[in-house]
């Protein structure tokens, strides 16, 4: 960074301007090859990007060029993959909420027809600048309270967005008001203006109802109600909302404005919030949303179990995401954002990740072959050197192209079969309240499976005792084992239903599906009579007496067999690095920054970052350390207040005790400012200045607070222990 081009614009003036335009975009177009070239010429000394770094051959220039090209490919691959995943997520969430949306729509239609049944105002009437006078009873605004059952509001944002979309596509006029708009600061005027801005194109400065009225009686707007969605009722100002309700209720016959309000707590919330007068103007209807864990299960199925875009995650990452959901905040939003970050990290770090989109191509093998042959030598070499390939027994490196294409095709096939089998397991597990995410995490756990392979005759879970990093059911067994138990005791009619669902899931997996069909056909005839008599309990023990192997056992055996054969964790397959994101550490640090801990660690153990030779490593304080580090270490000895006098004395003592020789060495670094030969370093003023600067830096980091006027000698310590 010693190169000055970056320093040129950083003049002193720029530092005290509130904002500065550092530079304009170099080439104003979508990043094309031309603009990429530009990037290169402007920074000839920049280090190679990651993939280029891997190629060590002397043709560095070309290498870097390739690096940029492949970086672009990876970005495109990310956007394609993520838009696919996002679309899947949107669809899943929309489908889950569809029932509610239809209820809302139904309610809208009924309310509209009931309002219109009172009187149907003429266009001219609507435009007259006063409300239509009817009975008081007719001035009630139809209002739907949607109970969201979420403690965190953030998940409901998408729900209400989708609801708005749904209603809009059915012809309603939609406006959304946020809690920020319904605040005393904006008042009812600002709130109404925002409403107008969403409905009308040109909004005059004066926001009044007549503008809305004249817009509403335009022919194309006239025959639909206006729905105002307020997604977070509890956060709104009751006064402002009440005023808005009072205002609109007078016009409801002329301009049918209905409310949809989201309530996170209970139905009491509106009663507490609104005045009784305003409440009387609302005609209520109560609707309820599904629970977050339902949504999570649906998401896991659509995004993780059936990788909709090829991209998948390793066991460690899955465990992290699971814990992030259950222990962090339980919101779908944070789960999705974590997944997105994982996805972007994968495409950013894995040089071959752009091949992932081959999974979406119609002729994937051809796609991979083309892409592989175009790869520069170095990256080809990298591909055949992937750890998963070097480990695998089939290591014939003479045809790496064929190897990779085959490997990837196998991965594609594996994904399909694997997800089918997992869904079969879940189909059984759901009768014992097993969560899909739990089964998923267990099924991709390479530790479980590798141990299983060595004890192939035993059940998967029996071996894995204590090895599941917290994914355990109450009985201390794995979830898959629990499923195996469950299937043994399933009542006949449920079992038959399960088998039918299996045959749907296993469609396309010839042999196994045949077996399922065989089970179905042999037993439906024979057991049909018995099935009605069987109860939930102990099916198998009853039938063992008959000498025939019961259906439950057969199904269990089949499931076990299939599980062992097909439920191989992705991390065992060659080339899985291309589609599978494994680096949980990177994900965690990018997702959850922990400044409170890390900043203190930086200061208490500066050597880990500075790697200097002059300071001793460890926790001992030495004078050669960074001033702020010394101060921070000294501060550790105090309670919640630090006596400035003592702190200063200790600081002075520490820096003066430093080995003077070592210090001279540090100070006389070659790039030192030429202002003066060394000023009297140990002078009182200098020590005080150093003390002041270190204290200021700790203050900027939020580690201490300045002394108050009342206690001028004591600084307040804020953080304790990293």
């Amino acid at each position, binding site marked *: *960074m010693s190169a000055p*081009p*970056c320093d040129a614009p950083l003049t002193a003036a*720029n530092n005290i301007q*509130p*904002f500065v*335009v*550092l*530079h*304009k*975009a170099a080439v*104003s177009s979508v990043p094309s090859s031309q603009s990429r070239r530009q*990037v290169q010429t402007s*920074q000839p000394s920049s*280090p190679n990007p*990651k993939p280029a770094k891997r190629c060590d051959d002397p043709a560095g220039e070309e290498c870097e060029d390739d690096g940029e090209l492949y*970086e672009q490919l*990876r970005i495109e691959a*990310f956007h394609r993959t993520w838009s696919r995943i996002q679309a899947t997520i949107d669809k899943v969430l929309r489908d889950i909420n569809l029932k509610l949306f239809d209820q809302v729509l139904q309610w809208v239609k009924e309310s509209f027809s009931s309002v219109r049944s009172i009187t149907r105002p003429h266009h001219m009437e609507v435009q007259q600048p006063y409300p239509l006078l009817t009975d008081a009873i007719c001035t009630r605004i139809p209002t739907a309270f949607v109970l969201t059952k979420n403690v965190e509001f*953030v998940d409901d944002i998408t729900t209400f967005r989708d609801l708005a979309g749904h209603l809009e596509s059915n012809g309603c006029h939609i406006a959304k008001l946020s809690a920020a708009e319904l605040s005393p600061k904006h008042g009812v005027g600002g709130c109404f203006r925002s409403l107008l*801005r969403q409905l009308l194109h040109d909004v005059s400065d004066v926001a009044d109802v007549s503008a809305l009225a004249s817009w509403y009686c335009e022919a194309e707007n006239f025959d639909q109600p206006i729905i105002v969605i307020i997604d977070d009722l509890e956060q709104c100002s009751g006064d402002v909302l009440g005023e808005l309700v009072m205002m609109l209720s007078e016009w409801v016959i002329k301009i049918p404005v209905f409310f949809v309000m989201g309530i996170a707590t209970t139905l009491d919330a509106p009663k507490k919030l609104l005045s009784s007068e305003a409440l009387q103007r609302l005609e209520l209807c109560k609707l309820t949303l599904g629970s977050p864990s339902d949504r999570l299960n649906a998401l896991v199925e659509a995004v993780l179990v059936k990788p909709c875009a090829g991209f998948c995650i390793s066991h460690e990452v899955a465990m992290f995401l699971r*814990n*992030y959901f259950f*222990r*962090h905040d339980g*919101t779908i939003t*944070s789960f999705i*954002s974590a997944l997105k970050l994982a996805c*972007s990290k994968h495409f950013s770090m894995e040089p071959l990740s752009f091949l992932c989109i081959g999974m979406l191509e119609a002729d994937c093998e051809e796609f991979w072959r083309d892409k592989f042959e175009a790869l520069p030598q170095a990256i080809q070499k990298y591909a055949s050197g992937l750890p998963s390939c070097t480990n695998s027994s089939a290591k014939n490196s003479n045809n790496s192209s064929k190897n990779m294409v085959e490997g990837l095709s196998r991965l594609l096939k594996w994904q399909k079969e694997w997800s089918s089998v997992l869904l079969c397991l879940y189909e059984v597990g759901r009768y014992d309240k097993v969560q899909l995410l739990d089964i998923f995490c267990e099924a991709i756990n390479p530790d479980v499976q590798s141990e299983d392979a060595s004890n192939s005759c035993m059940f998967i879970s029996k071996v894995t005792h204590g090895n599941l990093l917290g994914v355990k059911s109450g009985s201390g067994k794995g979830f898959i084992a629990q499923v195996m138990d469950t299937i043994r005791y399933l009542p006949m009619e449920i079992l038959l239903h399960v088998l039918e669902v299996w045959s749907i899931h296993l469609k396309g997996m010839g042999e196994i599906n045949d077996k399922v069909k065989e089970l179905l056909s042999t037993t439906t005839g024979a057991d049909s009579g018995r099935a009605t008599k069987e109860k939930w309990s102990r099916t198998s023990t009853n039938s063992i007496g008959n000498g025939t192997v019961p259906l439950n056992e057969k199904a269990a055996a089949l499931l076990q067999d299939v599980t062992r054969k097909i439920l191989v964790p992705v991390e065992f397959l060659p080339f899985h690095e291309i589609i599978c994101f494994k680096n949980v550490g990177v994900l965690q*640090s990018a997702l959850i*920054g*922990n*400044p*409170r801990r890390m*900043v203190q660690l*930086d200061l208490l153990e500066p050597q880990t*970052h*500075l790697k200097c030779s002059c300071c001793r490593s460890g926790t001992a304080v030495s004078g*050669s350390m*960074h001033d702020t580090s010394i101060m921070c270490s000294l501060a550790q*000895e105090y309670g919640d207040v630090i006596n400035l006098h*003592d702190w200063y*004395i200790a600081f002075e003592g520490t820096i003066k005790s430093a080995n003077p020789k070592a210090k001279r060495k*540090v100070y006389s*670094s070659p790039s*030192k400012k030429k202002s003066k030969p060394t000023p009297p370093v140990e002078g009182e*003023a200098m020590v*005080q200045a150093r003390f002041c*600067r270190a*204290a*200021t*830096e700790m203050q*900027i*980091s*939020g580690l201490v607070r*300045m*002394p108050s006027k009342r206690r001028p*000698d004591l600084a307040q310590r804020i*953080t*304790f222990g990293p």
Partner: protein
Amino acid sequence: MAPRGGRAAAAASSGSEDEEEDAGFSRSYFLAKEKEPSSGKKRARAAAGKLSDLNLVDEQVLRASLAEIPPKHEEEVEALTRSYKDQYRNWLFELRCGFGLLMYGFGSKKRLLEDFASTTLTDFTVIVINGYLPSVNLKQVIATIAEMFWDQIKAKRKRQPGTRSQLSQPFPSQSTDDIISFLKHQTSDDVDDRVCLLIHNIDGPALRDAESQQCLAQVSLCPQVRAVASIDHVNAPLLWDKKMVHTQFRWSWYHVPTFAPYKVEGVFYPLILASGGHAQTTKTALVVLQSLTPNAQSVFRVLAEYQLANEKEEGMPVSSLYTKCRERFLVSSQVTLNSHLTEFKDHDLVKIRKHSDGQDCLRIPLGSDALEKLLQEL
């Protein structure tokens, strides 16, 4: 928010780290406890040790020395900052994926980020916001972005006649919401440039309020805008709620300690060894007073003399100040007195308190000796 969850998640993936953390915490706890009883001497000194016992130098000398502090570990700091260069391409990648970058860790990150911006973000128009300043007008910033986009749209429209402009008034006179909603509607089809907001100290004093953070969050949600920000305060994550973190800023965190001195960031902080002394306050008070009219100075003098004469009292009632000042022909009406008082209050020369009998009292927040010194010099 984030840190706690982070700890939980960290505990899941690595138990050992957690134990270590606990050990560290208890160690410092016992260290603190150990100190207390063992050193009665130290305890006594803690009670007695006063800043005034130190031979503190004058603030001007202190400030002069501050500029001369020899850098420590200069090479290592340089090397550390340089080591992040390898990550620039990854940062850019993530920015293009739609994430915002949030840099934290000890040390000024100003130079690092600006170096990143000027070497790697060449496809972006980079706007630097210096959040460490005491005041930043965000509306100006977004108006600047909007004007830039607007120019591009106009240029495009010229090429495709037939479309008419929707905006009639210039951006600075519009409301912030209007400008943001304009920005939100600009996609890559409308404008060519992408803007990167480089926010130094998004947790800085000027941006710490909810409104500024909301504004930044909404701007960084705009399709053509990306945010790169740095935080220094350990509690900075408390500025944001879930919605802002996950759906607007979409932060990707990076721990990049630089150990570089907080040169510009620290300018606006008072010096810890200079704030305690009365000399400083007397001096600033004198500067303020000298800039006022002679009448105002005299009003202040009346108040100060009263305070010196009645040290025990809570302050001088406004009504008696008014009477005194009228007697001496310093003010002609309550209005003129009030205008003087407002001036004093704005510069922290007086404080208003409710007297126990209910009327407002005025008090100069200075000790008697400091006040005497001030009157002598005035």
